Structure formats: C-alpha cells, structure tokens
C-alpha cells in the first residue's frame, strides 16, 4: 500500500486519531440508552439515533479532512493508537485503531449513508409498533460497523465483526413473529458463522506465527514487512506458505459476510427484514465489511507477489468473485420479488468487488464498493418507497406504470439502475466497473475472469431493465391506488442519487483521485488519458455491454405488461433454464441434502449417545449410590444404633446392679460401714508402719 513513488509515511498519532474510538462508541451508547426507553418514546429514540450518527459523521469528516490535509501536503497518513489489552507472560494482545485513507473514506461513507437511511427509517417504520427497538438495533449496528472500520487489531475487528453479525441477526429477524423472518435470521447467522470459523482459525494462526494481531505498530505490526516476511517463510500445507493459507482463511470469513459463493445463501433470505435494514446492511455496509477486510489485510494477501503476476490467495479471491458475479446475476434474472432481485444483484456486485480487489488492488475494489454503497442503498430505499406506495406489495408482476404515480421515486430509481448497469460516463457505476474490467483485461494469469465479468455486466443491465419495466412502465396491475412516499423518504433518495452521479468524478483515469488518495501519491488531472487507445477500447466495450443488456431487456419486457398469471417471456422460451434460475440454481436444496442432513444425523447420534451411553452411566452411578445409601442406613440402624442401644442396656442393668446396694435394709448399710471401717483401718495402719 505504500506507493514506491508515493508520499512519505506519517504515523504520529494526532488528536483525532486518539479520539477515533468515539466514532463507533457514540452510536453504541445511543443504542444502550434507547434500549432503556419504553416503546412509546419514539421521537426520543429517533432523535438519539439520528443525533448519534450525525455526531459520528461529523467526527468522521474531521478525520477525513485530517487525512486529506495530510495527503495534500504530501504525506501518506497512517496514524495508529494502540494499547495493551491482555498480557500472558511475555506476549500481549493489543487493540487499537488506525486512521489512514482507507479507513477515513470508509468512515465517511458508512456514517453518511447510515445517517440517510436512519432518517429514511423514521418515515418507513412510522407505522410499526416496535419503533424504538428498531432504532436501538440500528444504532448498535452502526456502532459495530464503525468499529470494524477503525480497527487496527484483527481481534478488535473480529469482535466488532461478530457484533455486526449479531445486530444483523436481530434486524433481519425484526418481525420475529413471522416464521420466515426468524428462519432467515437464523440462516444468516449460521451461514456467516461457517465463514467466521475459518476467519478465527486464520486469526489464531496469524497470532501464533507473528505474535501480534495489530495491523500497524511502527514496524512490529502483522501487515508490516517484518511480519510478512516471516509468514512467507513459514510453510503451511500443500506447498503453500503460511501467508497464503492465512490469507485464504481470512477470505473465507469475508466470503461469508459478503455473500460469496458458496456462502451466499443467506443474503436473499435476509430480505425478510425491513427495507431500511436491507438498504443499510445488505447493500451498503455489512456486506461491504468483507470487502473492507480483504482491503485491510491486502499486504498479507499480496505478500510474495511474483514479478508481474498474482499471488495464490488473490487468484482464489478473483475466481470466487468472478464466479459469484455471474452466478448471482443469472439467478437475479428469474426472480419476481423486487427486493430479491436487488439482493442477488448485491451478491453479484460483491463478486465484482472481490474480483476487483484480486485483479486491480485495493483502490479498484474499494472504489466500486463506495459507488455501489450509494446506488445500491438508493435502489433499496427506492424499492422501499415503491413497496410503501403500493401498500406492501412486493411482487413486481403486480406493479406497473408507477412512473406516473411516483415520479420522484421513479427518477431516483432510474438513476440508481443506470449507475448499477454501468451506463457510460455520466454515472459513477460506469467508472468503478470500468476500473475492474480494465484490471481484468490486463490480468496475465487468465482471461477467464474478464469474460465472466463481461457476461455478468450484460446480465446486470438485462435484469435491471426487466425489473424497471415491470415496476415503472406498462399498466398498473395491482390493487387500489399507488401514491408517492413522504418527503422524509424521498429526500434521502434524492441525495443518494446526486452522489450516484457525482462520485464518478473521483475515479476517472483522467483524474484518479481516489486511487491516489488511497495509495498515497500525487494525482494530476490529465485529460489526455481519455485519448489513450486502451481507454477508448474499454469504453467501447463497456458501452456495448450496457447497450446490449439494456436493449435486450427492453425488447423482451419493454412496455409490455404481462398479467401476473402469465408466464414470463423467457420462461416460455427456455422453461428448464428458467425453472433452474428461478429456484436459485438449487443451492439451498443441495445444502439441505448434504450438510444439513448430515448434521441432523450427527445430532441424532449425539442424542442417542447422550441418552443411552451417558445417561446409562449416570443411571448406573445413581444406582450405586442408592445401594450405598441403603447399606449406610442399614449400617446406621443395625450396628450403630443397635450397638448404642445395647450399650445403654448394659449401662442400665449395671445401674440396676448398683442400685441393689440401696436396698433399704439397714443391716446392709451397717455391713458396708463395717467393711469400710476395716479397709480404712488397714490402710491407716499399713501406711503408718515404719
């Protein structure tokens, strides 16, 4: 990440770095306070949530400006504030936070998008009776996500990572009375758990190998050259180095959180949660956490790059990303739920980000993450607006012609859709996706990812056109009347739409500001870059892709409004393919038959063991103790009590014997007296003998 022709490193911890922990802490504290409120305190809860996040945004902007000023004055800022948390003998476990361009950019994005969504939620959840609980969880999530962003220690990151997973579970299952929502929450948690196990293994291994979990620690951190060289030298399995294997393990965790193949199954089901949740968590932030993680440990992933080539870890990341991109895009084509289409779109775009990271580096992947956050949040919130406007209907076949009834929503949604499809030049999505495609084209190890990503782009444009046609064009096929959403919901849409366009500016080849900012070297505006042949070829390719997708989609779906009962055009054309795509390529069913069935069997074995074997042992022990207790009682009764009684009897009869002395007969007494006298006399005489 240190540009060789880049700036000098600035590592002194400034004031804002020391206070960086406030950024996640404030929303968490707000969550705690809201948790103590009673349900009717809606205004207070909303104010606390919005206020805390606004405060965090303010602080994030301060941090960002600090880094920016450092960058403009020619320094690559990477300031850390570490402290020791635990100490075992000589080794310590440290925690800390880091402020560098990557975290600064992410902080601003998360707080800004988060703030907009929280404001949006006050309108969306206005009719819900669990209003306060929602904002409590939302604030907690925001705090946890911000914690992931600022973490300088893999352990702190993991802790906040788990907290993010927990809040995601709570929010997906927000309407827990619905069995499908509860099941979806469970599925999300468990699937990400599978990834997290590997993540934890990676963390432990890293700690064992390098002795530290800090990323940057003035040369002693795990992402710094000394540690990385050690990791490269240490061998692991299959001829790979420890660095590669640890990188892959960490990627497994990221794959779970970011819904990569094969751990993507939870993301579509997570749409059971309220739409703001889908917007925030499953579009902009939580799923991006996986991408952010890979960006954070990029030095590890990149360690030992052969000249002009790519490391094994990054190869795996690229292929998984590319495969996911196409896989999810295919499934998105055949879905009918407005949010599910967007969910699969998210999975697909996450694949793009991962591929971008692998092929082009941190800046490429992160740029797409940032732009995607804005337009995907926009799309989700637009979908929420639509759902709100058509009175909680989510099937696209039952919508139509909404562009007249909900013009603002339509306008912003169209902007988002075009950004996602990568419509040339105007929209930010074009520039970010273009960057990934350019990197893919230049990849030496294989052209496979490039072709996959191109195909995915075509599909993206296609299914988005299909969705927009169904929802906004054609005839209204639903019940009742649709109405536009209130300003509190449409205003954030407008703001996000603005950014969906504007952000493109910082990522063009003419002025690669974003890349320069992240990598720490100067960025010059060179309009000449637009004229380069490479760029023009790519521009042409991308434009072609988009137009093909859009055109094909319009052709098939256009202004036609098939009735809900009618079969889809493609379904009529290729029924088996459509069925497969509609059933999400049977991944869930596959898991059910293999892993879940195995687990069920295993659970039954364990139950049998528990009841028969352990239960039997316990019963045996109980029986033994019962016998012992019986024997003990017998012993006590017969021998102890009996012995005691016998003793008492003897004493009694002895007493009886002695009592005979008191016969009441005078002569007995006299005799005893006489005997006593004799004895006494004898003693006296005997003792006085010389």
């Amino acid at each position, binding site marked *: 990440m240190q540009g060789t022709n880049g700036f000098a490193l600035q590592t002194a911890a400034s004031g804002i770095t020391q206070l960086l922990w406030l950024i996640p802490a404030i929303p968490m504290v707000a969550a705690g306070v809201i948790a103590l409120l009673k349900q009717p305190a809606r205004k207070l809860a909303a104010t606390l949530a919005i206020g805390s996040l606004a405060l965090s945004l303010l602080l994030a902007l301060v941090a960002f400006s600090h880094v920016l000023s450092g960058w403009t004055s020619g320094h690559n800022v990477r300031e850390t504030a570490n402290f020791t948390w635990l100490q075992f003998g000589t080794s310590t476990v440290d925690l800390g936070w880091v402020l560098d361009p990557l975290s600064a950019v992410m902080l601003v994005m998360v707080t800004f998008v988060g703030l907009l969504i929280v404001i949006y939620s006050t309108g969306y959840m206005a009719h819900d009776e669990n209003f306060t609980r929602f904002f409590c969880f939302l604030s907690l999530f925001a705090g946890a996500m911000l914690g992931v962003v600022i973490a300088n220690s893999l352990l702190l990151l993991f802790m906040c990572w788990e907290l993010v997973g927990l809040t995601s579970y709570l929010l997906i299952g927000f309407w827990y009375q619905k069995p499908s929502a509860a099941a979806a929450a469970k599925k999300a948690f468990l699937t990400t758990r599978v990834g997290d196990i590997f993540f934890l293994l990676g963390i432990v291994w890293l700690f064992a190998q390098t002795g530290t979990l800090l990323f940057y620690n003035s040369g002693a951190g795990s992402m710094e050259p000394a540690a990385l060289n050690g990791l490269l030298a240490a061998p692991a399995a299959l001829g790979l180095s420890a660095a590669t294997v640890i990188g892959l393990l960490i990627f497994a965790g990221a794959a779970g959180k970011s819904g990569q193949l094969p751990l993507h199954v939870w993301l579509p089901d997570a749409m059971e949660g309220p739409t703001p949740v889908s917007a925030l968590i499953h579009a902009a932030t939580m799923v991006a956490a996986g991408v952010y993680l890979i960006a954070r440990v990029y030095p590890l992933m990149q360690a030992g790059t052969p000249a002009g080539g790519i490391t094994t870890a990054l190869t795996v990341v690229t292929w998984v990303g590319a495969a996911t991109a196409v896989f999810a895009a295919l499934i998105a084509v055949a879905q009918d739920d407005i949010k599910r289409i967007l969910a699969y779109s998210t999975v697909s775009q996450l694949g793009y980000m991962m591929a971008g990271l692998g092929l082009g580096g941190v800046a490429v992947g992160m740029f797409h993450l940032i732009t995607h956050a804005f337009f995907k949040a926009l799309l989700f919130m637009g979908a929420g607006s639509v759902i709100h406007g058509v009175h909680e209907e989510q099937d696209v076949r039952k919508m139509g012609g909404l562009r007249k009834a909900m013009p603002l929503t339509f306008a912003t949604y169209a902007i988002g859709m075009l950004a996602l499809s990568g419509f040339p030049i105007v929209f930010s999505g074009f520039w970010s996706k273009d960057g990934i495609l350019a990197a893919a084209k230049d990849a030496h190890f294989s052209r496979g990812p490039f072709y996959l990503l191109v195909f995915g782009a075509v599909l993206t444009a296609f299914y988005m056109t299909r969705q927009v046609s169904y929802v906004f064009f054609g005839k209204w096929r639903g019940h009742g009347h649709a109405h536009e959403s209130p300003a509190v919901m449409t205003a954030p849409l407008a703001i996000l739409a603005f950014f969906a366009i504007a952000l493109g500016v910082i990522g063009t080849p003419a002025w690669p500001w974003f890349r320069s900012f992240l990598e720490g070297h100067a960025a010059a505006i060179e309009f000449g870059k637009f004229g380069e042949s490479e760029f023009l070829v790519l521009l042409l390719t991308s434009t072609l892709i988009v137009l093909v997708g859009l055109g094909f989609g319009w052709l098939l779906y256009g202004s036609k409004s098939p009735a809900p009962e009618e079969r889809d055009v493609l379904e009529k054309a290729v029924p088996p393919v459509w069925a497969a795509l509609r059933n999400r390529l049977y991944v869930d069913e596959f898991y059910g038959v293999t892993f879940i069935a195995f687990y069920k069997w295993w659970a039954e074995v364990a139950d049998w063991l528990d009841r028969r074997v352990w239960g039997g042992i316990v019963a045996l022990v109980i029986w033994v103790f019962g016998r012992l207790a019986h024997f003990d009682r017998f012993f006590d009764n017969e021998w102890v009590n009996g012995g005691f009684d016998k003793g008492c009897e003897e004493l009694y009869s002895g007493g009886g014997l002695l*009592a005979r002395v*008191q*016969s*009441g*007969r*005078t*002569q007995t007494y*006299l*005799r005893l007296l*006489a005997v006593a006298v004799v004895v006494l006399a004898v003693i006296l005489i005997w003792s006085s003998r010389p």
Partner: protein
Amino acid sequence: MSPLSCYLLVAALVFAIGLAGALTRRNAILVLIGIELMLNAANLNLIAFWRYGPNPAALTGLMFAVFSIAVAAAEAAVGLGLVISIYRHLRTTDLDEISRMKG
C-alpha cells in the same frame, strides 16, 4: 502380754461380738443391743487407756467414758422409741422385711 493389751483384746472381742450381732440378727432391737455392746466395748477401751495411760490425774479417759455412757443412754431411748414406732406402722421388727429406704 501387758495388762493393757489384755483389756484391749477383751474390748475388741466384745466389740466384734456386738458387731456380729448388729449385722446378723433380724430383730431390730437386737441390732440395738449389739450397738450398745459396741459402745460398751469402746468405753472399756477408754477406761483401760486411762488407767494405764501417762496422766490419769487429768481424768480425760474417765470423763470421756462417763459422757459416753450418758449419750449412749439417750441414744438407746430414742432408738427404742423409733423401733416401737416402726413396729406400730409395719407390725414387724424384722429388718429383712423393712426396706422402705430402698432406691
């Protein structure tokens, strides 16, 4: 065998005889008779020692014996009164049967 020793032996003999009578006879009155014999034997002892002792002029032994006689008389009176009283209650003077003090 000095005269004193003879007297002492005689006294011891009478004493033993009296004791034997007190311990073996069933009639309460005969027990009292035995006791009187014992007292008398003791008196004999005292007088013998007075006579053959170092200072007969002090009259110690004699006085002792005289007083002993007086007390014995009083004791005999009371004792016999008691025996008669018991006889009136229990209609018997047989010591083997009188065990009211038992326990």
